[in-house]
């Protein structure tokens, strides 16, 4: 899904990772986090249990730059599992 804000000239797209438990959803997000330049990503938020299993969700905003004058950002989420 996406949301376009004409006033602030922003496009925000939400991408959700879905898959079996212990399948690597959080690991995938962590890999993206390490590969994207710090100035193009926000802070990775991980709401996990003490055993590192995702309790709520993981979240990582990634900045893609400007598309036709609109600042474009991907919001990457994982689901619990």
């Amino acid at each position, binding site marked *: *899904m*996406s*949301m*376009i*804000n*004409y*006033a*602030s000239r922003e*496009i*925000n797209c*939400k991408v959700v990772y879905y898959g079996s438990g212990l399948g690597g959803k959080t690991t995938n997000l962590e890999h993206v986090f390490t590969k994207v330049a710090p100035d193009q990503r*926000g*802070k990775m*938020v991980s*709401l996990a249990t003490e055993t590192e299993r995702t309790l*709520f*969700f993981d*979240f990582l*905003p990634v900045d*893609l*730059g400007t*598309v*036709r004058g*609109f600042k*474009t*950002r991907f*919001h990457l*989420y994982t689901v619990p599992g």
Partner: protein
Amino acid sequence: MSGAGTWSIAEEDHRKITEHLGALLKESQAHGALVVDRAGQLLANVGDELKFDPTTFASLTAADFSANDQLAKMIGEPEFGSLFHQGEKESMYLADVARRVILVVLFDQRTTVGLVRLKVKQTVNDLTKVFDDMFGRAGQPGQQKQAKLLEGAEDEIDKLFGD
């Protein structure tokens, strides 16, 4: 704005929203107000410069509200229309708007939760009208502009990931 989870906010609507938020800050003496959609996207922000990442804040706000909605159902309430988080210096008051977006008010000791709650009620009514109008226009001819932009954006994103 259109269905299937994709929607847009026009400049005129954004202007109306920020005007209502500005009036709220003036009357309540709070220092910040944000509007976040239920999917965790920041729609508008008025007040002092934020000292945190607004994108992450919006995402956690939506999660907070969703979790509390489920808590409400567990105790037999259809929903919690508002939430209050009290800190030592900074506090926040969250209110549902039209079951579509969340109004977040950030305030400190310069005001009281009572005043903020009182003023938020009027702002929620004002914002409900704005969002009802916005969603009422969904699917009308003006949305063709958005479809064209999305088409162009898809091409650009394809190019970005092309190599």
